[in-house]
């Protein structure tokens, strides 16, 4: 097919949106993708998006998988999580329950990712524009982020506040992790080479 001949840049970073239902995962995604805010709420099943972005003057592609907060079936959730390289774990600052559930999401992600504590992960407190209805304090969220060793960003999908920041923070984490792993791989390869040489000698 002709449309596939133009090869897109090879680096694709896979981001997964997780969080309880109604916290604004899709709203954040749509704001990031198309710079629009959708008021109407419709539960997402699972949508994926791809966009070309410039990350620190390097052109990369971001693949966003917007998952269903309502997905009750763990096996399916595992399948989503396994396909991701980085996670935006979203809660609503106006809903304590959604904040508490981030713990479950974090645990599930770690379980799926073989307890890799360094998995690129950003904790996102959305609906920052509804500050007067805030029930999750910045301190509480930051404390949790500190415990997990992750970044905390407060966003508003409505006003676009910090939306790009949250995505780009995660993208950098993913990129750095990939670079690290690549470096590690070449190292082990070298070691292997050395070993082999030893045997030859």
């Amino acid at each position, binding site marked *: *097919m002709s*449309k*596939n001949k*133009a*090869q*897109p840049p*090879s680096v*694709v970073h896979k981001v997964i949106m997780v969080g309880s*239902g*109604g916290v604004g995962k899709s709203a954040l995604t749509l704001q990031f993708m198309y710079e629009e805010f959708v008021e109407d*709420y*419709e*539960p997402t*099943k*699972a*949508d*994926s*998006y*791809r*966009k070309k972005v410039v990350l620190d003057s390097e052109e990369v592609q971001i693949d966003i*998988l917007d998952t269903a*907060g*309502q997905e*009750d*079936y763990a*096996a*399916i*959730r*595992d*399948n*989503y999580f*396994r*396909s991701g390289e980085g996670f935006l774990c979203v809660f609503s600052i*106006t*809903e*304590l*329950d*959604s904040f508490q559930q981030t713990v479950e999401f974090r645990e599930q992600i770690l379980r799926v990712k073989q307890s890799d504590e360094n998995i690129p992960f950003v904790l996102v407190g959305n609906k920052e524009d509804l500050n*007067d*209805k805030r*029930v999750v304090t910045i301190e509480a969220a930051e404390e949790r982020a500190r415990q997990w060793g992750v970044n905390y960003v407060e966003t508003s999908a409505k006003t676009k506040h910090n939306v790009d920041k949250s995505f780009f923070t995660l993208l950098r984490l993913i990129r750095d992790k990939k670079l690290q792993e690549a470096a590690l791989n070449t190292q082990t390869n070298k070691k292997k080479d050395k070993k082999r040489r030893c045997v030859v000698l």
Partner: protein
Amino acid sequence: MYELIHMLSDQKALLSSLLETSMLSEKNGGTSEVQDSMKTNENSDNYKYQSLAYLLETVESCPPLSDVPNRYLLHDGKLNKLDCQTYAQTGEVKAFLLNDRFILAERIDKKSSQDKYRFDSIFELEKLAVVNVKDSDKLKNAFQILDFPNTLLFSADSSKQKNIWLEKIDIAKHAIAVKSIEAKLKENMLESEDESYYDDEFDDDNPFRDSPKKSNTKAKTEREKILSWLQDAPDELDVAIAQRHFDEAVDIIEKIRKFIQDNPKDSIFTEYACRIERRESSLVEILMNELKAPPERSVRGGPLFAKRAVSQLIRLGKSSKACQLFLENRSSLRNFNLEQIKYDGVTQSYIQKITGVYFKSLLESGLLFEKAFQKTPQCQSAFISWCDKEIKSYVILFRDRLLLMKANLSTTATCIADARKRLKELEEIGLSFEYLFDMLLRTDFCKLVDECQEKQREIISIDSKHENLWRPSNLQNSQQLTEFEKELENLGFSTIKQYSYDSCFSHLCSATVKFVRNIIVVLNDLEKIKCESIYSSVVNCFSSLLKFQYESYDKIAKEQHELRTTIEMNKKFFKKDLMPFVTNRINKMGIVYNLSV
């Protein structure tokens, strides 16, 4: 298996050809019952079976599929297989969607037009994650399936095609979920049937034995209906909460609760209860937050919204929480209204505005509370103690502000009268707090009376030093005298004319007239306070003032001999007119006391 399918389809072909011939022979009016039944079968089981057979026929080395009963083909078609990273097309596949499996196969001979495929992979639908890939410049009509470690990207030839795929997959998944619940339900039914088994034995002779069975099946379908509704309930609930249709959300929860209540032993329902619970608690939290939000900042604040949130919380069984939050909300609303009041330099209107805010809040709260908490009388005491607190907070503010602004007796008394009027209004809706108001302010009232007495005594003692104040009043002309007479007559002194002489004089000296006027002002003010606790202070005040004034007469008479007649006349007025007048007024206030000097 394959042979068996062939045999069956052969048989079917034979049967239908036979039927056709028999139809021909009985062209007019033969029964076609057999054929009818055949057709219905074709539409259901046989068709399903055939579709599966078709799959097995076209796909080489396909794993056995007929091992699971009721398995059938839902959809099939050609899909383009794409590379997940680059989106480049890597091939073409034939996909089959069964009710519980997703199968991929590749064309064997790409050049031949024959529909022959080789089995590629099979996925369990239940665990399969399906992702709708949104259209972009590079990619259209695509969707992804994730089944670790496989991630496959497909594109359909049109968006319509893609939507059909997604829709059918969704339907199949939904059906699987319903089925698994039904299976659990059956398990449950078996258990409950076991329980009722022994009961049935006694009914052996019952001629109506059939009827309970019938109702049982009826109940079954009813139950299935409920279950399919329950299946969607959590989603619906999420939507309702997210869209802030709280009433709707509460309706859903209530409905689920009712099902659980009706079937206490049914573990399926309890399972749903667990799924709902989390959402319920988040709903409760949202509602509570709505009530907690300070009214000036809450977009949806205000009494109307609070009222709705309260009624929803009550329906969710959180009446005491609702009550507490409702009252807190009312307090903060009152506080907000209080903050809006600005001191404009007029103490009286300022205090009256404060009174207005408090009592309007109390009155409104009382009415709202009565409506909202009708069915939960246990909340009444909380409301009463809230009122109590409100009144106390009001009294503190009232006292502080009056003190701070050094309000005079008149202003204070007017404010008290105003508060008392409001307290009476509250009484009309069954809230009587006048006793509390009086109790809290009793000492202040007494102090007020005492202070007033002090002030008047001071005036008298200063006046007693000005001897010209104790001379007969010269009103210059008869006209002014008449006016003077009229004034005192209007005040209640009908005998005033007998003290007039020489068409422009009155025996009543300025000091007396001033005293009369002051006393009347004090009377008017103290009358407004209307508190039994101050009666003794009031009596004390007047008797002391009268006495003090009377003593002043004697003192002046002693010092100023030429004024003796005038003083006598004034003493006469004092004893005959003023004392009865004051006694009368005091009695009217409810104090039975005879003043004397």
